[in-house]
């Protein structure tokens, strides 16, 4: 059988396009239509879905386990970060509280050691001594009396009086912590003013003692608002060190 040429083929195609369809052609055409329909349907399904719906069970299982692993990892990260956040938040709150407490203690200790100025109600003891007959021990008595009565901050003629303050007699005055002050002396004490003034005024007390000196006279004035502004340099202990507190 000889191979027919292309011209024969093309003519065959042309004839077929024009020919009246037989029963076989109808069936073949139906199948081709079904094929085209399925093709379009499948193409649309593939392009419409994100690939998950068309995937196989195995692939879906792989994807699922992948996602579960990732979710587990992310959940672990979330838990870690939450712990870190809680720790940081608690730490900052604790730090703030500790800072406030430390400031409060620093203020209290500063008033006691004379490194910060103090303000409050109290009394002023003015000792006029034109002849210089008031000695350091009289002033020390006055200071002790005020301390016993609850004075919290003391100042003698511009010098802060603290626990380690020394009073030494010098000609024409008194040396307070190495600083000479001359009469009239002005002793400012902050505390409960009525208690302080009555402590100074008891019979045979400070006022009587001062008045018994020749030419000296003492006056007490109470005031609702006094200021102790003299400051004292903080001295660091050279030998004493904080000891660990014993548990009771």
């Amino acid at each position, binding site marked *: 059988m000889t191979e027919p040429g292309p011209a024969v083929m093309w003519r065959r195609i042309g004839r077929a396009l024009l020919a009246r369809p037989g029963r076989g052609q109808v069936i073949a055409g139906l199948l*081709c239509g079904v094929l085209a329909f399925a*093709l379009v349907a499948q193409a649309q399904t593939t392009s419409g879905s994100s690939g998950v719906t068309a995937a196989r069970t195995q692939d879906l299982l792989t994807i699922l386990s992948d996602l579960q692993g990732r979710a587990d990892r992310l959940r672990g990260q979330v838990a870690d970060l939450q712990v870190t956040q809680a720790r940081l938040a608690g730490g900052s709150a604790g730090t703030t509280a500790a800072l406030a407490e430390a400031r409060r203690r620093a203020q209290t200790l500063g008033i006691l050691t004379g490194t910060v100025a103090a303000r409050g109600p109290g009394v002023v003891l003015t000792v006029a001594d034109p002849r210089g007959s008031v000695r350091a021990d009289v002033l020390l008595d006055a200071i002790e009396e005020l301390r016993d009565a609850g004075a919290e901050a003391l100042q003698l003629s511009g010098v802060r009086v603290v626990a380690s303050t020394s009073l030494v007699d010098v000609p024409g005055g008194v040396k307070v912590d190495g600083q000479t002050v001359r009469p009239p002396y002005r002793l400012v004490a902050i505390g409960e003013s009525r208690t302080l003034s009555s402590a100074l005024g008891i019979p045979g007390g400070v006022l009587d003692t001062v008045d018994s000196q020749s030419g000296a006279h003492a006056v007490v004035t109470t005031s609702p608002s006094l200021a102790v502004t003299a400051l004292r340099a903080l001295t660091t202990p050279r030998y004493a060190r904080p000891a660990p507190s014993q548990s009771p």
Partner: protein
Amino acid sequence: MIVLLAVVAGVVSGLVLQPNVPLDLQPYLPIAVVAALDALFGGVRAWLEGIFDDKVFVVSFVGNVLVASLIVYLGDKLGVGGELSTGIVVVLGIRIFSNAAAIRRHLFRA
């Protein structure tokens, strides 16, 4: 003529109806389509060679689709569905290419 009309009608209805492929058929439809394409190209080639037969075409068309689907189904049951689908697509693709080459030789002698 009627074949062309049927193809156009199929494409149009597919586009218009937007059919939702049932979930059970989804693994098989692509393979079935490829198998049907193979049968179609075989039919065109046979027709150009003058040995086209309606019955043979219909049987080969339906048979191709059924066998391809059956193989995919078996592959799914055996756990090698993906690999078998790939194999079927490769084999049918090779057949389609050889048929297309034969058609090209007949029409253009090249």
